[in-house]
């Protein structure tokens, strides 16, 4: 069957089976390998994407359900040479070790900061709680999100001037 989805701003028409997972569609058909498969059961957050503005475990979404949806993956945030402030903050805070959870973490951070530009540390902790990390102990990831909030606030005030 045919579906239409907007991925990272680009509209796509794709042929999918009813049992294709959104995760596989993004990784295999569109080559967006920043979307990771962890548990495959919606428990770990590695496959997180932003779908219609909400954090979504792409391993649990049948592709037809994503018809007409707007999807953002980590590839839609920044590029290697032009990182998004959140990505920049992750690098600066030393928040990345093996990196497997990081795309999901970055998107969870984006969703949180879109809603709460000046979160408390507790809000950051809850905002990231659906994403499991086994390397970092989360401390530097939490630091990174607080840092990103500061960066985005400065950028915001610059653009208002």
């Amino acid at each position, binding site marked *: 069957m045919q579906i239409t989805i907007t991925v990272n701003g680009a509209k796509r028409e794709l042929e999918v089976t009813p049992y294709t997972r959104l995760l596989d569609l993004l990784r295999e058909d569109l080559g967006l390998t920043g979307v990771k498969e962890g548990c495959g059961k919606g428990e770990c957050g590695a496959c997180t994407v932003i779908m219609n503005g909400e954090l979504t475990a792409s391993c649990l979404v049948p592709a037809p359900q994503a018809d007409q949806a707007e999807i953002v993956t980590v590839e839609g945030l920044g590029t290697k040479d032009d990182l998004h402030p959140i990505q920049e903050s992750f690098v600066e805070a030393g928040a990345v*070790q*093996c990196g497997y959870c990081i795309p999901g973490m970055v998107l969870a951070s984006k969703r949180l900061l879109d809603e709460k530009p000046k979160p408390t540390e507790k809000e950051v902790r809850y905002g990231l709680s659906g*994403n499991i990390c086994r*390397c*970092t*102990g*989360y*401390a530097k990831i939490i630091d990174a999100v607080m840092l990103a909030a500061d960066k985005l606030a400065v950028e915001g005030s610059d653009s208002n001037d």
Partner: protein
Amino acid sequence: MKKFGRGMATIMFGFGYGEGFPDHSIASIEIKEDERIVIRTAAADVGQGVITTVIQIAAEILRINPNYFEVVQGDTHKTKNSGSTSATRQTYFTGNAVKKAAEDMLANLYHYGSLEFRSNHPEIAIEDGRIYMYDDPDDYISYWEMAERVKERGEKLEAEGSFFPVTYSPDENGQADKVYVAYTFLSQVIDIEIDTDTGTIDLLDVYSAIDLGKAINPKNVEGQIEGGTVQGLGMGMMEDQVIRNGKTLNAGMTDYLVPTSVDVPKFKHYLVEEEDSEGPFGAKGVGEPTLIAAAPALANAVYDAIGVRFFELPISPSKIKKALKEKEKEENS
């Protein structure tokens, strides 16, 4: 009711395979004409940061900006054996191999520099990717140009280093001259709060003092401590693999719980740089030792808070509730 508790534990950890096992690492470095310095090592970076670390080490020895480096890693066609990424050994073993390769490369730069300038090593300066005579810094040969000139001689500007320390198997009394290459020491103090109604533990603060010889990359070291400690705390308070008749009953992340961002404490680190005589710039390993003290320190904190000793992990809320009930019964009888 909330009850505060503070616990401490200290550990030591001999790293590398040790006990006489042949344990070594081989690395090489090549300076290319196209402004690249290539390090070849089989050391696998699984996120602990060995690639960053060896680049820092080589850049320090070769007196040049780390941005020029690239690392060919873990390719059996292109790299020699560096041993496994295990036993907390890569910074020490491959760090040393890369350091030796870089020192050999620096010697080569002096050697070819003396040929090009028709002079002696003491007259030659090497700094910021340039080779020149002390009395004429403007007339320099860059590393890249030197690579070109060495190529014209039919040779390559490359160097190799290996690190192969000897250890001994302990005798029947557990004694030997050197069982492990070195030991890392870690003390941790953990502050917690126990909710006596629910039996849950709130992790407040973790203070870690680690004797790691030298922190080559302090931020990576902190990341290792935080990650290892949180794994240890997970083991201490929630991770419980339930096996019945040979089958794991909770092979999933909703029933085998691991710590999330909500569970983790705040950290404060004290890096004790008591340099090791053999480690690269005095560094020792900091991977696995970071996990070990957490659970015993937690168990001590639990004892401090509610006066109950636990000898089995994890110290789950249900175990705490049960212990508190039994304690109450004993006190009333």
